[in-house]
């Protein structure tokens, strides 16, 4: 089932399926790794709930809710996201 990244609970992971934003914004997000197939974990929220910090590719990147709710993905079972070796 698809979820918005902004609806992920702390510690949950999703694989991105769609970035529903205009092309230039999509390009910008892509540079940080937000793109189809990327595995993203919701790692914490700023004190007031917005922005949200996501872990992907081993770095921590913050997005505002208004942006994160336009990124759709499928929830996956959490597993250590740092293991690239397999």
């Amino acid at each position, binding site marked *: 089932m698809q979820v918005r990244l902004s609806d992920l609970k702390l510690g949950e992971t999703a694989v991105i399926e769609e970035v529903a934003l205009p092309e230039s*914004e999509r390009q*910008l997000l892509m540079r940080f790794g937000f793109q189809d197939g990327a595995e993203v974990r919701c790692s914490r929220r700023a004190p007031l709930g*917005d922005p949200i910090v996501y872990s992907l590719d*081993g770095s921590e990147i913050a997005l505002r809710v208004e942006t994160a709710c336009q990124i759709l993905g499928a929830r996956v079972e959490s597993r250590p996201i740092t293991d690239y070796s397999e």
Partner: protein
Amino acid sequence: MNQLLQTMADSTSQSQQQVRTVALIGPPNSGKTTLFNRLTKLRQKVGNYPGITVEQHTGVMALSGREITIIDLPGVYSLNPHSEDERVAVSVLNGSMDGVPRPEAILLVLDATNLTRHLTLAAPVIALGLPTLALLNMGDLLAGRGGSIDTVKLAGELGVPVAIVSATEGTGLDAVGRFLQQANEPVQMTLPVVQDVRECRRWAAHIARESAYRAPLPPAWTRRIDDVFLHKVWGPLVFVIVVGAVFQTVFGLGQPLSNALQNLLAEMGQKVAPFIANDFLRSLLLDGIWKGVSSVLVFLPQILVLFLFIGLLEDSGYLARAALIADRTMHSVGLNGKAFIPLLSAYACAVPAIMASRTIENKRDRLATILIAPFMTCSARLPIYTLLIAAFIPERPVVGVLLGTRALAMLLLYVLGFAAAIGTAKVLKSSVLKSTSAPFVLELPEYRWPTLRSIGLRLTDRGSVFLQQAGTVILCISLFVWGLTNLPLHQGQPPELEKSVVARLGHFIEPVIRPLGFNWKIGVGLLTSVVAREVMVGTLGTLYGRDPETRSMSLQAALQHDLTFSGAMALLVFFAFAMQCTSTLAVVRRETNSWKWPVIQFIYMTGIAFLGAFLVNHALSALN
């Protein structure tokens, strides 16, 4: 690694052409400037958040008798620029930047702890076809946290030599020397379509896998610290405590040091006085120059304390967290959260802050940030703030030893400046500069220990800028003001202060500033402070030093004697708002490419300053 370089060198050693110019390129915060400083022995600014370097810097590296020009560039995520700083980097690489030689070789600086993502940039950079050395920086962290990579395989995959280095520890850097001695074109490889970010990422992941990249464990400490600093309750609390501590230290530690320095300087003046026989010369040296310059010099301790804190915030990585906590505020006025980082750096000085706005992708957001940055309380306001607060506000504890009345007053002035910035942003963003923002994407760097060396360098650099300013601008203006206090000569004798040219000038403008609670001396100070804010203090030092009534007093005592409480508070508010800085005006002109914005900004800020000071003066006088 050595072997690899060797074999590559052997195969083409006949076709060497000597490299004279080499550019450092890499994603933001990968350590390019740290490396640049190592190679060139220069001291460009380093810090632990993305987007510190926003223009190119060149330096020279000596290499076995040859001189090689090294160019440090702003960080880029791709060669497809979205913001002004990235545009600078890309035009330097293309050789289309005026006055900068086209690079003949490239040092590609990647963060080894983040390689899967950082390798994305390798494809477009290698595709430029220049001799390239890929430096996997932060090698110390990679090894320390159990990561590893097969550099020989990676070099094979990339078609360029690879070295693991640590710019902070200086390890592995001999590879740079060897590369520059015999730089080779990249071996032809199949690279992805370099315009397509998605393709590049897929390629990068593939390459990382092929070269057995094992990412290091996540930085456990960073996570633990963020559990507190970004906690719902503790986070904002820490934020407030940090800010409070800064101000309390400026007063608690800075003020006594500053008083000691003042006594020392005054005594030095008195010791020297009897040795100067000529009256005129003595007045020139002591009343004119020494009073003016030393009244500014005494603020050196406070400035250093402030910069110590700014250094700790920038080097540790807390700055990015502060931006995160404050994003809601930025959001509510319609500004991109990224604007908060330039605004924070404006606490040091508006000039680099305005430059730092180059990292903001949206043009209108960038302009709004440039226009509001000078409202942020820069360090040049510190002398006049501490002077007036110490003179007019008695010290009482407010929250135990944590916060006193003086620190609180200072804090309120900072809040006032910030509120003016935010209010102005709101007006601009809902009218002339309305736009949809580019999405806010902020990378949180891992925490790092600020090193004694980097903090020490910041303080010495800052201290010497301050001393230089005192020795040049402030000295000249003090001298000029002193000269005016001695004109017109009357039968070869200088006039009384009240009859001098400067008093006439002061009295001429007095009607305008009297409603604000200022006297003519303050007025003359304000005129000179258009050059730079701290000049005000120098001018007042000289004027009160020339006045027989206040000559023997400290500047603080002289002001108490000469200014009402409401006038002093009005003056503080005036300084909080007014645009009194020629360097800021010049940089706004440069960055916006027109005189229009600096002129509007000057009129607007001065207008608000007048209005604010007027209201405060009248409100407080009515209360008394």
